[in-house]
């Protein structure tokens, strides 16, 4: 075994070439092989040997909802209890922001107090912007929300904001608490870490189905899904932030005689606060990312508008609501980032000042809220933005798209056809043709080659799971779409990253572009793409490439910039041309970072791929989506797990390669 390994290691190139050649041959001729040998199992996993997981999970869910009981209360009571915990605050936030408070049900409802006026809400956000940073941010906040009012998105936006207001605190505090537990008890961390890994790779759709089952259609389900989706990064950030507190600071706490509780809340958490705020920012962005997906199980608001527009192919409406989400995402992102980096005023305020002067913003907000409340009795336009004054960009967008489609249809069609016939289809044929049995063997071999025995067992088993679930063909479509998209994203992203690393001005432009790309909720990418290229693999690919571009650029730039300057100087002194410097020194040294970037690109591509099921891809994402519409928990979870396994395999193989590359370059300390 060891000898075999030595031989193989001496011939890395030969290993990969032979592996690819055999795979290609088998892929090309699997059909003929089946005909000649009359062995149908070659191309189709035998139905008799399929794992009956789907039906098992489905019946388990059924049992959970209908019969499960903990003695004193049933499982149903538990979910109702959780639902009521979330529903109360959510209703309050919604009443406060848009609906107004009322008593009674249905037609008998009597309004007892109106919601905050739109003016009051905007002033509050402006005040927060100024408090968190400066007038510039305040102006941005004001501008963004004024946009929502003027362009008629206010009502939907407030419903979305209400759900963000509920999901973010629960997600952030919940994540913080879980992170603290994991930090304190190693055992708990060991339990939670694989769960977190899985949570971040399982597509959201997969757990929408069981949530739908447990909580029913409605805003509560949507909030639960959002919280589950947004919490894992907060847990990770919390663990990391607490670990990063210098050990001396912790020692200070112990030496002054802190109890465990004091140590955590007076020393550790405040010292970790700046980094924890980064986690909160993540929670906000992920919550916004979820608004469209969550609207499939009952969230209203902007997400619902986008979804219905997508379904009706209402170009203008979709773009309008999509832009509104983007505007809101940008505003909340900048605001939370400002809070994260906010430094306390250098000198404390004079406590002798009157209350009003010490808190000018709180006072202003209160005055405006009460003032508009009173004035609204006379002028209804103060309570809610007058409809007559709204502008609609819907027709404008529709016209643009129509114009492009009328005049450039042939060009677009030609590009699309070229891509399809020269890139997408051949690759698709290659992947789909691979017989499942050989697929398992290949993955085992790659795992063994890159990471040794442990990894090979894992990759082999995961691949076998996918085959045994009867999802092999769908999985191969996912791999092909993901592969092509990642290839293109890297092909664009890495050169752009290199450019950003070598040129400061380009760096600034590229950075702000990438920042914006990353702020956009994933769904937004779909809208223009579908409008221009209609449904299909090509549209899906473009959306995935756009979404997955950012990490390729980031990691490439970071890798190149972090090459030891002494090495570059050594290269210069040896007389390297800039081109030689790049190819001989910078790129090889940046290889581990590039691999990590590739890893991230794949992860993002997979998560986006599932969403593109909405535009008609026929991969695992579609299976999950079908499961959602049929409320089939079993199929949803199995297909979701398959996507997660593909992601985990890719992650582990690339991490192992990056580690090996680092060792070879002597970069490990």
């Amino acid at each position, binding site marked *: 075994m060891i000898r075999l390994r030595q031989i193989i290691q001496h011939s890395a190139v030969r290993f990969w070439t032979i592996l690819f050649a055999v795979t290609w041959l088998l892929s090309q001729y699997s059909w003929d092989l089946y005909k000649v040998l009359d062995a149908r199992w070659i191309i189709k996993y035998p139905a008799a040997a399929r794992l009956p997981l789907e039906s098992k999970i489905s019946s388990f869910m059924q049992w959970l909802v209908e019969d499960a009981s903990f003695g004193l209360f049933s499982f149903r009571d538990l979910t109702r209890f959780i639902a009521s915990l979330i529903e109360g605050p959510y209703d309050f936030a919604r009443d406060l922001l848009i609906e107004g408070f009322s008593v009674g049900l249905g037609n008998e409802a009597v309004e007892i107090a109106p919601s905050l006026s739109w003016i009051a809400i905007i002033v509050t956000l402006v005040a927060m912007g100024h408090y968190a940073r400066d007038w510039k941010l305040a102006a941005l906040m004001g501008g963004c929300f004024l946009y929502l009012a003027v362009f008629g998105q206010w009502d939907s936006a407030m419903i979305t904001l209400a759900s963000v207001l509920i999901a973010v605190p629960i997600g952030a505090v919940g994540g913080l608490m879980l992170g603290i537990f994991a930090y304190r008890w190693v055992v708990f961390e060991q339990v939670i870490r694989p769960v977190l890994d899985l949570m971040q790779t399982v597509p959201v759709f997969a757990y929408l189905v069981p949530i739908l089952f447990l909580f029913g259609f409605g805003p509560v389900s949507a909030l639960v899904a959002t919280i589950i989706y947004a919490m894992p990064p907060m847990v990770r950030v919390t663990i990391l932030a607490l670990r990063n507190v*210098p050990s*001396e*600071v912790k*020692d*200070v706490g*112990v*030496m*002054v*005689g*802190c*109890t465990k509780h*004091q140590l955590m809340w*007076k*020393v550790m958490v*405040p*010292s970790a*606060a700046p980094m924890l705020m980064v986690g909160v920012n993540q929670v906000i962005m992920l919550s916004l990312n979820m608004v469209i997906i969550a609207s499939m199980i009952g969230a209203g608001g902007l997400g619902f508008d986008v979804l219905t527009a997508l379904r009706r192919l209402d170009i203008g409406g979709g773009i309008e609501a999509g832009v509104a989400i983007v505007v809101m995402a940008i505003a909340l992102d900048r605001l939370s980032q400002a809070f994260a980096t906010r*430094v*306390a005023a*250098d*000198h*404390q305020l004079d406590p002798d000042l009157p209350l009003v002067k010490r808190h000018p913003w709180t006072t202003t907000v209160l005055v405006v809220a009460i003032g508009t409340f009173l004035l609204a009795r006379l002028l209804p336009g103060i309570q809610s933005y007058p409809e007559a004054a709204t502008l609609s960009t819907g027709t404008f967008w529709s016209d643009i798209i129509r114009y492009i489609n009328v005049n450039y249809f042939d060009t677009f069609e030609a590009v699309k056809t070229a891509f399809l016939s020269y890139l997408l289809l051949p690759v698709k044929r290659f992947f789909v043709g691979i017989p499942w049995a050989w697929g398992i063997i290949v993955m085992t071999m790659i795992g063994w080659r890159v990471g040794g025995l442990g990894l090979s067992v894992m990759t082999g088993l995961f691949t076998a799971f996918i085959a045994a679930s009867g999802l092999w063909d769908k999985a191969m479509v996912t791999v092909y779409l993901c592969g092509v998209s990642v290839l293109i994203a890297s092909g664009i992203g890495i050169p752009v990253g290199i450019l950003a690393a070598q040129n400061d001005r380009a760096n600034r432009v590229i950075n702000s572009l990438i920042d914006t790309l990353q702020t956009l909720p994933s769904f937004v990418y779909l809208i223009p793409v579908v409008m221009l290229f209609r449904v299909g693999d090509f549209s899906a690919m473009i959306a995935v490439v756009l979404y997955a571009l950012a990490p390729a650029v980031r990691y490439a730039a970071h890798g190149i910039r972090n090459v030891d300057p002494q090495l570059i100087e050594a290269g210069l002194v040896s007389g390297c041309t800039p081109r030689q410097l790049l190819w001989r020194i910078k790129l090889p040294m940046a290889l581990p970072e590039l691999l990590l970037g590739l890893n991230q690109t794949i992860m993002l591509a997979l998560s986006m791929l599932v969403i593109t099921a909405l535009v008609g891809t026929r991969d695992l994402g579609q299976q999950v989506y079908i499961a959602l519409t049929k409320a089939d928990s079993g199929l949803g979870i199995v297909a979701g797990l398959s996507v997660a396994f593909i992601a985990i395999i890719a992650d582990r193989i690339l991490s192992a390669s990056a580690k090996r590359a680092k060792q070879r370059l002597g970069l490990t300390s």
Partner: protein
Amino acid sequence: MEKPILLDCRNVWKIYGAQASRVHAEHRGNPSAETLRNQGLIGAVRNASVQIRQGEIFVIMGLSGSGKSTLVRCLSRLIEPTGGEILFEGQDLLTMSDKELIEIRRKKMGMVFQHFALLPHLTVLQNAAFPLEIQGMGKAEREARAREVVELVGLKGREDYYPRQLSGGQQQRVGIARSLAVEPDLWFLDEPFSALDPLIRREMQDEFLRLQNLLHKTIVFITHDFDEAIRLADRIAVMKDGEIVQIATPEELILNPATDYVEEFTRHIPRSKVLTLGSVMSPGAVAGEVGGDLQATQRIEDCADQIEASDLPFRVLSEDGTVVGSIGRQVVVDILIGRKVLL
């Protein structure tokens, strides 16, 4: 008469690695270096015994990796030692309950850290008042006390600054103020000046000596800088590879280094700054004319000019005024130019 022992540390071990305590117990609390190596264990502190007396400055000196930081963390029980006893005012810290330990740390111990370890979200005043806040002292009372210590370390007027607005030296002053706020009996300083520039370091050492003259604390001071150790210490423990090589006063270290390792450190130290007349004089009464009388406890540095200027030898007197020996120009010159002298 010797002062009473405040902290008595007996046969303390800190071994890292799997089953460290089993190996420690199996070898009756004294595993050899070879045993540890064979078991794949690391002996960060090996069989350390030190007695720290009331009011002295006890310096633990060693290069990085010598185990000095681990030892001081064992003494304060920030790290759980693998074996041994640590008696603080007669009570064993290691068998103490968490509650008792918290009580002792709150009232009787203070510690200063190498990288200052100030809490970034608190002002200078709040940092200094932090230990008192933890004890539950009221705001007015603790801030009054914090103001005193902040003034004591010379930062009056900067109470409302945040740590990030201060220089390194100022930050460490805050660290010192914080550790003094509870009026500790035992004061640990873990390489307090190592992260500072040489000039500032010197200034902080002077400041430290000034404070000690006012406060007379019992001090355990960690450093990797032998000059600093010589300058500040009443007694020094030199550590190497987890073991204490020698415990002695600065003068004894220079006169009788226990090993070549210790001698290596002492070699470049100007002897005139450390040695006293009592240790270099020729013992016995002097006959004939003398240049004058000097005290046996005087450092050579302080009276070198006087001796060098005179052709005659000087009489050396003990504290009660009896003549214990004599010293001439030749010895002083030998010491000043660093010539090997047989003492």
